[in-house]
């Protein structure tokens, strides 16, 4: 299945580039530069080498023997994007776009960030590539992810809290587009997921495809066979697209896990597809969105800032419609339980985002026969979530520590 052969940025009825006219030329420039790079085999080779030397690609696949035994059923394995430099799959996309920005002669990058991971990754890339950097982050996320803000600043980036709208990821994206509409001459906008106007969904998919490519090869080599299922959490959809691309043409069930928040019936979630509450809309691109009766985007909720996003990849919308990707959701509570179990039994600390994929895989593991393989995208590590996790677990001594630190 080649999703990108047309180079049109359309995936069934989804995708496109719904942008203010002022952005037309820079999107056109970017599209041309991207395809030129994609057609240049040296570019991919340069990218792979960079990721091998600056991060630790290929990232390993870790069998979750203890949890598999504990649950009974499938053999669970995790693709370890948490081991990437900066702690998540976000770096893959960012370093790739960084190489492209250098090719285009840009001197500055901007990026939105929700969980902060994409912001840290972008600030890191900018430091490494000598680019000026500004990160837009919803004010609510600045609160949730303060450690990431601290590191972005230390890496030399300017972090701008976005006070408009719901003050989360979508508003940070809007603010980036605003910045870009006057800064495009020297600035590249490093969009962090497989959403936004064409060519971003295709471009980010392209860079993230390294994950699925590696995973497929590794499984055949180490496990002697393909997985029966692959689970990935879906915020915008970049880690999912990354890993899914390794298995699109295989008899492998692909499962996207959205943020079920307080429950799909609660109105406090971020499930655009699994909930059935999403509807087709346009905000830069055509896809499923959570919107009200007038097409206004609504507030979403998730314990994981990186999944707390109102839209979803147009490519995944297409793959969901066509039945190639099944969508489900995991609620905050299950996610925390899955996180706890993964820490206790495997010594792994998935990011809260990634823990959604673990939660769904755990829930469904018994549907499979023992020996059948389930690959889970461990898109990031959970260290960054200490404030959220400690709060969710009600850790008293942590609170006391903060009190002392704040006082001192």
């Amino acid at each position, binding site marked *: 299945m080649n999703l990108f052969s047309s180079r049109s940025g359309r995936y069934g009825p989804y995708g*496109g*580039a*719904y*942008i*203010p*006219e*002022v952005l*037309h*030329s*820079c999107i056109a420039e970017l599209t041309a530069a991207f395809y030129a790079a994609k057609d240049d085999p040296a570019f991919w080779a340069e990218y792979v080498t960079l990721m091998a030397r600056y991060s630790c690609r290929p990232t390993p696949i870790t069998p979750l023997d203890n949890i598999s035994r504990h649950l009974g059923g499938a053999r669970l394995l995790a693709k370890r994007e948490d081991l990437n430099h900066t702690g998540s799959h976000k770096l893959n996309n960012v370093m790739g776009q960084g190489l492209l920005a250098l090719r285009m002669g840009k001197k500055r990058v901007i990026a939105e960030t929700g969980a902060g991971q994409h912001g840290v990754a972008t600030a890191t890339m900018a430091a490494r590539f000598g680019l000026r950097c500004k990160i837009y982050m919803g004010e609510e996320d600045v609160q949730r992810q303060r450690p990431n803000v601290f590191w972005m600043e230390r890496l030399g980036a300017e972090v701008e809290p976005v006070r*408009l*709208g719901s003050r989360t990821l*979508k508003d940070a994206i*809007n603010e980036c*587009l*605003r910045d870009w*509409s*006057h800064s*495009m001459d020297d600035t590249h906008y490093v969009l962090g997921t497989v959403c936004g106007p064409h060519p971003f969904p295709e471009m980010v998919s392209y860079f993230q495809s390294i994950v699925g490519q590696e995973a497929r090869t590794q499984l055949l080599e180490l496990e002697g066979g393909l997985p029966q299922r692959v689970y990935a959490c879906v915020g915008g959809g970049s880690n999912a697209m990354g890993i899914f691309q390794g298995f699109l043409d295989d008899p492998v069930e692909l499962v996207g896990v959205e943020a079920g928040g307080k429950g799909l019936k609660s109105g406090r979630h971020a499930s655009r597809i699994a909930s059935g509450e999403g*509807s*087709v*809309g*346009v*905000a*830069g691109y*055509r896809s499923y*969105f959570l*919107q009200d009766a*007038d*097409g*206004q*985007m609504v507030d979403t909720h998730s314990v994981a800032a990186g999944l707390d996003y109102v839209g979803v990849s147009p490519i995944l919308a297409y793959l969901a419609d066509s039945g190639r990707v099944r969508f489900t959701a995991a609620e905050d509570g299950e996610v925390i339980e899955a996180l706890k179990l993964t820490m206790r039994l495997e010594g792994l600390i998935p990011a809260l985002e990634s823990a959604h994929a673990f939660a769904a895989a755990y829930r469904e593991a018994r549907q499979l026969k023992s020996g059948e393989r389930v690959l889970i995208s461990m898109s990031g590590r959970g260290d960054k979530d200490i404030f959220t996790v400690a709060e969710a677990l009600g850790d008293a001594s942590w609170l006391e520590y903060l009190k002392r630190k704040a006082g001192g």
Partner: protein
Amino acid sequence: MVETLEQSLRRALASKPLLLMAHLVAGYPSFDDNLHMLEAMREGGVDLVEVQFPFSEPVADGPVFARANQTALERGTRVSACFDLMARARNILPGPLLMMGYCNTVFHMGEGRFLEKLAAVGAAGFILADLPPELGADLYGRAQALGMSGVLILTPNTTLERKREVARQARGLIYCAARKGVTGLKTDFGGSVEDFLRDVGAVSPLPRALGFGVRAPADVAFLRGKAEMAVVGTAALETYERGGARALADFYRRLQEGVLTGGREA
């Protein structure tokens, strides 16, 4: 069939060198305020008005309008009420009315219903800030069939080829953004704006409305003879917020004088 947007504008231009186009965000600060603003526009001699339907993701708007969009929505502004406002505006103002907004509002209600309602309230056309011509061909075509104009935007950084392409599909007027960026930022009126308007004139016979950053009589004076319309957005909203309807009417009146006197008395 009623006059098209272009016909109305040409008629007005016959007696006035530069038309004044005003802007308001429906439901901001409130619908009552909108009515006061519309009265002030009439008093101030405004020639046409764009009524922005607030949207939750106003990416083409700068901070002032973006916040106005958000506040309007927080105060419960519904799309149906925006149409109602247009219908009432029709009775206040003699000139053409344009719906302005983002395409999700249209797609969500359905293109057919949107155009129907827009026609029903007597609008002359619409401007969708995030709908490029190639993605809106269908909508723009259907609008024209109903006698309404889908207004397109050009910016200085557009290539000549692209300008030609946009001009080919444009109807009613060409909305010329004076510079890159979003609404509400400062614009330097000078040679580059003049060059831009000349370029647009070279690719399209349509009246040119120059917007983004028009704040003062001198700006308007500068545009006389270079564009057919001046669009005043953020500065007008700020004036209303500071001084209410009376100040707003004065503000438009001073801009009109700017057209005539070259801004020397501002």
